[in-house]
């Protein structure tokens, strides 16, 4: 039976270093939840605390409201998929997948159909009697996956399961994992440093940095409305502009004056005046008749869009992705103007917190 996971004010200490610092998260039953962040942000540490391989120095983790801090790893009823597969090299594929069932005292006759079904689900039934050293990385990962979910765990944990695979296989496996997870309805906590993977696979994402959670939200929320500059920069690409908000008009609209040369009104969630940083994604900037003056310095044709590198009047370099222009590439050296839709940009205080709606 799938369970919810509640993490309350959890702390992991390595000496004085707080690898996970007062993290709280609520993961819903059946949800595909991703911990995303650069290396060293504490995401794997947190996952291993849930799995029972790391001690919990402070706070509480509970499954369906039941505290599990003191329960040893082998009694938590968790399926785990490891970064380097951890397929037992001295057992056949079938024995690997049946291992957890055996540990649960299920008789051989009852194990066999379950193992077969699991292998069927990851499309490697024909490899059942092979030894792991004869398998490719992708196949080993499927074994690891089948082994983790065949025990029908209440929670499935995955620690960067795709990072050792090549790009094409990664996309294939990603889709398979997501479809399986949806079909089985197992609460899944997934760790990755790859933001594209996180966006593609998750119901919700927690972006982490230095042991803290920076933002929790659906992939679209995280991408479109980053709550702080760290998330804005970590997820996708953003151009950053410096500016000030001088006055607030009716409807809590701030008059934003960019140093790059234009003034627009942006909807704000709080009345704030002073210096701000504005993050605008490359695809939200449009070539226009008027707006921010810039000069094209470099262009890269990337198939579905063209990536332009432009120089602003003060020498700052910014990027613009232009989609859907079937005409010739814009000439390097051309003077252009750039505009944007005010609702699409994010405005941050000097402390890095968002103030735009």
């Amino acid at each position, binding site marked *: 039976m799938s369970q919810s996971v509640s993490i309350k004010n959890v702390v992991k200490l390595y000496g004085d270093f707080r690898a996970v610092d007062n993290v709280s998260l609520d993961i819903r039953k059946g949800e595909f939840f991703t911990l995303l962040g650069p290396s060293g942000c504490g995401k794997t540490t947190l996952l291993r605390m849930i799995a029972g391989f790391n001690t919990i120095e402070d706070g509480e983790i509970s499954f369906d409201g039941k505290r599990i801090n003191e329960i040893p790893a082998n009694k938590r009823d968790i399926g*785990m998929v490891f970064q380097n597969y951890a397929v037992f090299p001295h057992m056949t594929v079938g024995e690997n997948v049946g*291992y957890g069932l055996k540990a649960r005292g299920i008789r051989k006759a009852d194990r066999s159909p379950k193992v077969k079904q699991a292998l069927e689900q990851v499309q490697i039934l024909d490899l059942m009697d092979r030894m792991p050293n004869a398998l490719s990385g992708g196949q080993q990962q499927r074994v690891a996956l089948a082994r983790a979910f065949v025990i029908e765990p209440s929670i499935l944990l995955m620690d960067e399961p795709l990072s050792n695979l090549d790009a094409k296989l990664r996309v294939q496996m990603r889709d398979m994992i997501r479809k399986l997870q949806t079909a089985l309805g197992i609460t899944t906590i997934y760790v990755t440093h790859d933001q594209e993977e996180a966006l593609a696979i998750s119901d919700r994402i927690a972006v982490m940095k230095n042991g803290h959670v920076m933002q929790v939200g659906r992939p679209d929320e995280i991408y479109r409305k980053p709550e702080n500059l760290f998330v804005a920069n970590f997820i996708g690409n953003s151009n950053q502009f410096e500016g000030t908000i001088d006055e607030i008009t009716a409807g809590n609209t701030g008059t934003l004056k960019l140093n790059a040369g234009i003034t627009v009104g942006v909807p704000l969630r709080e009345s704030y005046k002073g210096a701000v940083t504005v993050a605008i994604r490359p695809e939200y900037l449009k070539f226009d008749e008027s707006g921010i003056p810039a000069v094209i310095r470099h262009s890269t044709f990337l198939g579905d869009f063209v990536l332009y590198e432009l120089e602003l009047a003060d020498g700052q370099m910014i990027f613009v992705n232009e989609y859907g222009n079937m005409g010739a590439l814009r000439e390097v050296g051309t003077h252009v103007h750039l505009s944007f839709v005010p609702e699409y940009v994010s405005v941050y205080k000097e402390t890095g917190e968002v103030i735009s709606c």
Partner: protein
Amino acid sequence: MLRKLRHRYLNFWTIVTLCLIVFFVVALILPVAQLFLNSFKDAEGAFSLESYKTFFTKKYYYQALQHSLWIGVVSTLVSTGIGVFLAYIVTRYNVWGKNVLKVLFLVGLMSPPFIGAYSWIILLGRGGFITNLLKPIGIKMPPIYGKTGIILVFSLHLSCYVFRYVSAAFKGIDSSLEEASENLGASKFMRLFTVTLPVVIPTITSVMIIVFMRSLADFGTPLLIGEGYKTMPVMVYNAYLGDMGGNKAMAGTISAISVFLSIGLLLVQKAYIARKNYRMSNLRPPKVIELHGWKRFLVTLPVVIWVFIALLPQLTVIVTSFLKMNGPMFSDQFSFSNYQIAFKSCGKAILHTFTYSTIAIVFVILIGTFTSYVSVRRRKQGGTLVDTMAMLPMVIPGAVFGICYIMAFNKPPIVICGTAIVMVLALVVRRLPNTIRSSVGVLESLDPSLDEASISLGVPALKTFFVITARLMVPGIAAGAVLSWISSINEISSSLLLYAPKTVTMPVAIYTFVSQNDYGQAAAMGTIMTVAIVIALTVVSRMTRKSGGII
């Protein structure tokens, strides 16, 4: 809180660590410490540096150090020179019978040097086969006794050692390094001396240190063939059992000096050599050059000649074991009589050798597996301490070790001298370091997430150790254990000090026969040992063939 305490301090591995610490302290640290303390005592038991002073001022004593160093240096240089040369030829050219030659080198390596010593006496000693053969034609061979003999035996034996480790290094060079050198315009000669050799130099120097230490520690060879030429281990033996009633302080002093010498060498190796080991991505092993006709013959010849000389002692032993004895002389008649007499008089010795070695190896595997787990996975919880203690026997020559045990275990609380227990215990402790090093290697290559996968699938940590970790360590340990078993069968230095009439082993019996000029029975025993070694080596090479093998 109590539960947390129990969880943290009283689990299975804490108990294992404690047991290991107790074991090593009792079976190793205390006996060795006692010997060292004795070296600083005078006859009345007061602190004194007298015996050190005596050692370094009396020629009778310090001469042994000079002898040991001289023999060590010469044998190391000769065996390294020849071993490296042969290793290069065998790894780089299509030498005829390559695999057979490699096995023969391993046989040479695994055969005890004292067998070599006594065979060379049979061949080149006074009244030896070759000596007698050459006498009528007026050729007089130089005397084989003394340093010539010791150096000959060591060089032959240790060259097999150098060959094995250096060929592994030559094979481990990525061929792209040499191709890069060639591509940049280097000649073959320049390539060898600027790329190939420098890259394996760390391995060569490490092997040289080990070889040097082995020649310092070997006891059987100088005892048999050295005659008046005494080396440090012989001196320890004499000082302890001594013609003049024995001098425990002096035995302790000489032992301490030998151990310090070995420790010094190991530290040099750690500080300057081990650091320089190059890690290579061995994507493509170096190519073997195909020679034809007389060129191929020319590269094969030196290898075959050297292997022949190195294994000549074994051949001699086997052939002479089937010759009828004529008093102390061999006749030219074929006979099984040596075996009949040997089985009758020494059936027990044969039985002892195999039972002691086998029991010892069981314990070596057991203790070795636990020690390596603790030293890799529980480093901070006492693992490093256990590991360091377990490695100590590497620097203690067998004779010294034997004396430590006699002194420690012939009085209460532990009285086991003269029993089979002390023989087995000495074997266990002396063979542990090699087993631990190889299983630590295996364990380090095992991903800890294998354990974690098993645990998270519902198998408790302890059971996981047995069904996953230990199970995966077995192949690596087993191959090493067979080699340890062979060297246990060969063990002479500690056994010679620790044996009692009811615990005689084959090497001890051989030594006794040789010293009584009873070469026939010695040959029969030597043949039995050689056969056991060859069988065991065949088993290992089968076992490890899949995983790249030890051969």
